[in-house]
Structures are given as C-alpha cells and as structure tokens.
C-alpha cells in the first residue's frame, strides 16, 4: 500500500491509498482522478497516462526501459521528469509518491 498524491495541472490535489501491485495509472483511474486518460489500458501504446514525477522522487523509481522512453516521445509536453504512469508498479516503497498531470494528454 502506498499513499500517492496526484496533482492536476490546476494544482488540485488528490491523495489516495493505492494497493500494491497495481500501477500508478490504475490507482488514478480506479479513484476517478481526472487527468490520466490511459487509452490503451496500460499496454504502453498510447502515452496518455503521462505524469511528471516529483523531483525528489524521480531517481527513486525503477529506471524506465527503452520502450517507455520511445513512447514518451509521443506524450504531450514531456520533460526530464516524465514517466508513463502505467509503467510504475505500486509497492510500499512508493509511499508518499507525488506525481503531476500535464494540462492535457493529447
């Protein structure tokens, strides 16, 4: 279980408890948090689950594999803290994670 803070581009915060072994994307979708579209349902084929990971957290996450970086090329306004939330698996270590959503996903 991890407490995750999702911040919309308007700065509206959503703090939710997300169970282990689902993804940060699923955590948002299951809690009806707006700002993550996840059109491909987590198969890393759409880049509409793009989030900016908080600076303090970015290096603590498991590194992205090449496919994720390729997919981020297609995301809406990616930066160096960008990740695809469907590739971030929740575990106790992610307790306190903060992610921000872009102003739109496409």
């Amino acid at each position, binding site marked *: 279980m991890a407490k995750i803070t999702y911040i919309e581009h308007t700065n509206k915060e959503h703090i939710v408890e997300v169970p282990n072994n689902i993804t940060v994307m699923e955590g948002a979708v299951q809690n009806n948090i707006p700002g993550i579209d996840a*059109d491909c349902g987590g198969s890393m084929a*759409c880049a*509409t689950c793009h989030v900016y990971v908080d600076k303090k957290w970015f290096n603590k996450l498991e590194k992205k594999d090449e496919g994720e970086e390729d997919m981020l090329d297609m995301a809406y306004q990616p930066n160096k803290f960008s990740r695809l939330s469907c590739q971030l698996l929740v575990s106790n270590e992610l307790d306190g994670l903060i992610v921000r959503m872009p102003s739109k996903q496409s």
Partner: protein
Amino acid sequence: MITTDVLVIGAGPTALFAVQQLGIIGLKAEVVDNLDKVGGQCRELYPDKPIYDIPAIPVCTGETLTKNLMKQIEPFNTNFHLSERVEQLVKEGTKWKITTNKKKIFVAPNIIIAGGVGSFEPRKFPLKEAEKFEKNSVFYSIRDKKYFDKKKICIFGGGDSALDWSIELSKNSKVVLVHRRPEFRGTPKNVEIVKKLEKDGKIEIETPYQINSIEGDNQIKVITIKDDNGKIKKIDTDYILGFFGLIMKLGPIAEWGLNLDKKHIPVNTENFQTNKEGIFAIGDICTYPGKLKLILSGFHEGALAARGCFKLARPNEKYRFEFTTTSKNIHERLGKKQT
C-alpha cells in the same frame, strides 16, 4: 450515395469478424476507417508483437491476425473506404444517413460502431497557435513533397517518419531536425544516414529541444525551441512538420446522441445495441458489466450484433440459426461447392 444493410465504422479486428458474421447470414456491409489500412490497433500499434490468446491460434502477430481475418471475409467482396472518417449520423425515416469527412454518404438501416478508442489521428504540436497555420505551414503528413522544394523546413520527431522525411526533403531543401532527446527511435540505418547528412552539413540536428513558440502572420516565419533547462533557440523557417505518431480520438462519435460512459458506449448484451435502435457497438468501444477489452470478446460481440442487424435489414424475414458446417445457404454465400 451508397445503400447497404450495415455500415461498419472501424476496420479493426472486431469489425472484420463482424463483416464475416454479417456475410454468412446474408447481410451486406460497407466498412469505413480513418486509417489508410485495415487492422485497427493490431496493425497500427503492434503489427510485429505476438498475440497468445486468440482461440485455437497458439500465437500470431497483429499483422497475421489481420491478414487472416481479411482472408476469411474474401468471399463477401466487402468495400473498404479507408483514410476516411465518419463524421455525421442522422436518422432519415427508418434508416440512418451517414456522412464521412470526404462527403461520401451511406444509407443503411443498421450501423455497427467498432471504433476502438476512437479514430487514429496524428498527434499535434502542443501549441494553440499551431492550429491557425495548419492550412499552409504546419503539417503532420506530406501529400506532395514538391510543395517543400527549396524551402526552410523544421521537422519534429524521433521515429522513422521524421527521419525518412528529413532524409528525403534535405535533397532539395534546408532541413532542421528537432527532437526532445539525443537518441532517435528510428531504425539504426535511418539514424546512421541522418547522422552522416548532419556531418556533411546537409541537415541540422537540434536535440534535446521541443517547440516553444510559433510566429508569423499568414505563414510561419520564425519558431523558437526550448530545452529542459529553459534554453531557447530561434529558427527561421517556412514550414514545420510534426511526426509524433497517432492517437485515438473519439471525435465525432461523441456527438451522435449515444449514451456515453467515459469514452465508452453502453450496450445491451443481448444484441449489442446502443440506446438508439439500429446502432450497435462492439469491441473496445462498447461497455457492459464485466466487459473485457480482448479481441476474443470483440468477436463474440460481433456475432450477436450481426444477428441484431438482421431484423431491421430484412424486416419481412425471420432469422434462422444455422451452422457453417452444414448450411447450404452459408456454403453458397461463401462460394463453396456442396459436398
């Protein structure tokens, strides 16, 4: 104007199998898809990846699945209207009148929406201003490359489309290739050619940069690009081209008065009809309790929707259930000799 028993929106795997099911019960279908090819997500997003959960096919790629589905519907000589998007849908008497973006008109008692997560469209530049220049200086695909002769062009993207066009257009024009990171995801061969062209002074490469602003009156004059640390560069250019892949957009489907549940169309699982009579939804776009976004489920949904279409397409006949193995009618429709 084209009249038919069923207009199928989308040419993904679900749509293709629905055409088969319509064909064997004797209904004629026309198929429209915004992509320039059939196969939907399987062909566009993962043509070479293996699929392991199609019944009785231990493994096949998205490409092979599509090819086999097409083979299975060959006997029905179905018309495919590709690179065309269904825009409008209105009721006329007992039928639906459907209009595409190319102003093609279909009239049919039934519509099967097999639109996936929406129609595949190019991803655009994230700047509002870009839209205003889409007529003459911002492009997401190239129809006639002569248009770009002897011009200054900025190409954005890191995949093969961006690289292919950088290589091609640099023959007659001044090309700047801009990408958000130093690595390109195109084929190693393309990357090698582009790097060589850069060394020979034929192409300029700007990484890691993304678009920041566009200026000009009717036509683009100058753009700026920005890196992650906020460093800004100015580039004089006549045209900008963006190759950021495709995205699925629900688009017009949302405006047809159908019930929607978060981009999905709720259906009745008896025949996959929506809240409107004669409009069915199958595959990834439909939703009902327990819905699984699997190709397998899409096939089942298509089989039932096809039977659902029968009533309105043949109001004076009664649908009779038959097996393909033993039905003479079906053998005739499939062009098979009786044995």
